[in-house]
């Protein structure tokens, strides 16, 4: 899976939790899930669980700590996919 495909998939996963639709439409690699997209921090857990299911990976807590924006999430997803 290349980065573009992963980004599209990530966007679909994140979309239902987003409270700032405008920020979502302008999503870039620096977009922060909580401060830009206004995702409730309790829902970030749901996003991580959804990512695990969608990509078939497991995200340990140390990796989870870093997943606060789009690029970080994509990097971790890619790392976990290659580890398999």
């Amino acid at each position: 899976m290349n980065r573009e495909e992963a980004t599209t998939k990530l966007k679909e996963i994140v979309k239902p939790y987003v409270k700032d639709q405008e920020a979502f439409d302008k999503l870039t690699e620096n977009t922060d899930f909580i401060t830009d997209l206004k995702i409730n921090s309790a829902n970030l857990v749901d996003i991580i669980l959804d990512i695990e299911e969608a990509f078939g990976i497991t995200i340990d807590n140390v990796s989870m700590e870093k997943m606060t924006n789009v690029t970080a999430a994509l990097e971790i997803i890619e790392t976990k996919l290659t580890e398999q």
Partner: protein
Amino acid sequence: MIGNDVIDLSLATAESNWRRKGYLEKIFTPREQQFIKNSDNPDLTVWKLWSRKESAYKIFNRITGNRVYNPIRFECLDDSDLGIVCFENTLYFTQTQYTKNYIHTIATSLANDLNKIVYLENRMQIHKKNGIPYLELNPVSISNHGRFEKIVTLQTES
């Protein structure tokens, strides 16, 4: 330093299913999971523990400027409305109030500061410096969720 977190209980219930497989393990340590399991009202306990972690995290974030998503590392050492949260070697002191509609936890870096809490009715006179709210020189913590907003600060030393 002060931090707070308010949770609108009906919104929280609508937004998050904490019973989802894998959910609790991502946020709560085994000790905290035991508090939830032993509770007469696990829904309330889940959100109380969460609000304590969030309010402690707010202090940590303000002091260090660090933004990381690691709720599990802020461990509630007890399940008490006057409780302690521990992150690495730092303790935060928490006070939790609740009604059937909301939970509100306030955290302070010093235990005695819990006696100096001032509730503000609105955002008048609050200014932001580097994104952090202040009332004159006193740090202010603001939290809102759903129908509720709570604004707190500490009494100035006289």
